[in-house]
């Protein structure tokens, strides 16, 4: 045909993203910008916890019980060494929050990765293969959904704690938490993915892939999955927030991270005993961090849902 083709150098991945629809809507949405900024600050600060934190809360040698319950800087009676005060064991709260946020984020992300892996594979198979396998897998999902996540987690963690003893349990608590939160919530993914697969499977490009002789796994992974990504992104953000909340709740109930390696939830829980004796900061400050973290993730997810779903018009 004509020589209209202009062969510009292919733009970089970042500039493509920046100039895409999503980038445009992001630049126009102050809530999304602020949310992403706060999220990135929290994420980077907590990842760099070993560098940023003045103390190592996991090292008993650095903890002095005599330093316990110092209030934050701006309250009378504070020790200038401890910016946000100290907790009941004399740990610097600022360092502990950094380490705790890192743990919470890690558990949240890994649990969602596990959920996504299970849910996406099950959803793809159920949607693509259909028939009896579909019915079987979806009934399994229904059964799983009829138990609340927290109930399953509490029972599972309480039983494992009793079985292995708290020593071993505390050592592997992070893996147990990831496993139980990950397994309990896979139906969210499976149902969403199955629904999009059912829609995509009817399209002609799938037929053409079948006529070209591609196998079912190749079609599922290379053709259907990339076209089902937008709803997966949206639920992933919401699920990360949910997983962080679940982890915090479980730790608060004493079934999660041990006090020696506190996540945000166990930090809140350990301060809870002192809240009426005046040391409100041990609970309040990690609580605020948790709320802000979950809120910005949810706001980002909300924005993403609006962008990726043009049918949803928000006036």
């Amino acid at each position, binding site marked *: *045909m004509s*020589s209209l*083709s202009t*062969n510009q150098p*292919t733009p970089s991945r970042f500039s493509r993203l920046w100039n895409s629809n999503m980038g445009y809507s992001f630049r126009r949405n102050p809530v999304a910008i602020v949310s992403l900024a706060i999220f990135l600050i929290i994420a980077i600060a907590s990842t760099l916890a070993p560098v940023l934190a003045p103390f190592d809360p996991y090292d008993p040698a650095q903890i002095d019980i005599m330093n316990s319950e110092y209030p934050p800087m701006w309250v009378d009676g504070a020790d200038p060494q401890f910016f946000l005060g100290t907790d009941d064991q004399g740990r610097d709260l600022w360092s502990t929050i950094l380490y705790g946020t890192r743990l919470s984020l890690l558990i949240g992300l890994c649990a969602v990765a596990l959920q996504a892996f299970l849910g996406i594979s099950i959803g793809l198979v159920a949607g693509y293969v259909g028939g009896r396998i579909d019915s079987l897998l979806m009934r399994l999902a229904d059964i799983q959904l009829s138990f609340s996540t927290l109930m399953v987690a509490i029972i599972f963690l309480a039983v494992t704690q009793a079985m292995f003893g708290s020593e071993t349990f505390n050592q592997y608590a992070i893996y147990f938490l990831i496993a139980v939160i990950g397994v309990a919530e896979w139906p969210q993914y499976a149902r969403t993915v199955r629904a999009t697969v059912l829609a995509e499977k009817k*399209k*002609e*490009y799938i*037929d*053409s*892939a*079948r*006529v*070209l*002789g*591609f*196998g079912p796994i*190749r079609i599922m992974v*290379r*053709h259907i999955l*990339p*076209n089902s990504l937008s709803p997966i992104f949206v639920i992933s953000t919401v699920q990360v927030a949910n997983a962080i909340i679940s982890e915090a709740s479980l730790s608060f109930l004493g079934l999660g991270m041990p006090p020696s390696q506190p996540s945000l939830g166990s930090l809140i829980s350990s301060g809870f005993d002192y809240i009426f004796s005046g040391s409100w900061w041990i609970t309040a400050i990690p609580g605020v961090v948790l709320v802000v973290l979950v809120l910005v993730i949810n706001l980002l997810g909300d924005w993403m849902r609006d962008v990726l779903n043009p049918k949803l018009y928000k006036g």
Partner: protein
Amino acid sequence: MSTASQQTKPLLELKGLEKRFDLDKGFLETVKLRGGRLTRERRSVHAVNNVSLNVDRGEALCIVGESGCGKSTVARLVAGLLSPTGGEIHYDGDRIDDRSRAAMMPLRKKMQMIFQNPYASLNPRMTIQQALEEPVRHHNPQMNRGEVRDKVAEVMRSVGVDPSWSSRYPHEFSGGQRQRIAIARALTVDPEFIIADEPISALDVSIQAQVLNLMLEAKDERGLTYFFITHDLSVVEHFGTRVAVLYLGTLCELADTRTLFENPKHPYTKALLSAVPKLKDEGPSHIRLQGEIPTPINLPQGCPFQTRCAFANARCRESRPRPLLQTDGSTVACHAVEEGRLDG
């Protein structure tokens, strides 16, 4: 059209092909309340009924008919996207309808399909290069990257798409260009037989001719055989060597294009041809069919066309006509033609 040595064996042979789609799938759906009694009944859509035809090497067989008459179902059955309820499909002498996916693999290189809607038939998340490279790689694992790229570039040039556009995504192209790319994808595996399911009906009229000519060029250059589904009779006249007319999933008439257009025999074919708009209006020759197509769930007894046919008599209402060979080489399934009740 076909060479003498291969004339004896048709490339594709459909023998009594049938396809039914069950409407009531689960057990509970089959239980119905009829006149105060619970009965079990299983309804199904009779999409294709006892269709037998041959496609010879090098020809372009066109399947025409109203919408809902089972044209696309026939195409999908031949392509192996659906499996027939009854009957057999033979390709190059071998039965193919009962093969597993692995056993179909060698055939996938020979038989390709072009789809109706170019806006849906390309994966929106793959660049043109990726979409065209994938089948080449899949079917020729021994090729290295350079050879694959050369092959893709050659095919793209042959369908008139600039290879320098290959890093673009399908949404950056127009419908006609996308259909060219879809044709290119079918040609990447060097097929000999192409099933085209209304490949131009979603395109602008000005683009239709371009794409048709492209397909004709490819036919001459690569010695392709086409199985061409369409509802556009002017395309048939331009494109097809033989025509099969379907009505309600049943074959009405099968003839050479010229024979069919000059001397249609089946009453339905006559009505169909009279509906083609002409430049010269030759008076009240337009045959108006009464009524609607019956639902393919409850097929009428006897000839499927009898509910709308002006020549139907008691025999048509009772027994189904069989396709019979006529003196001019066409095959017609009609009692009236057989008995000579139609004048002309």
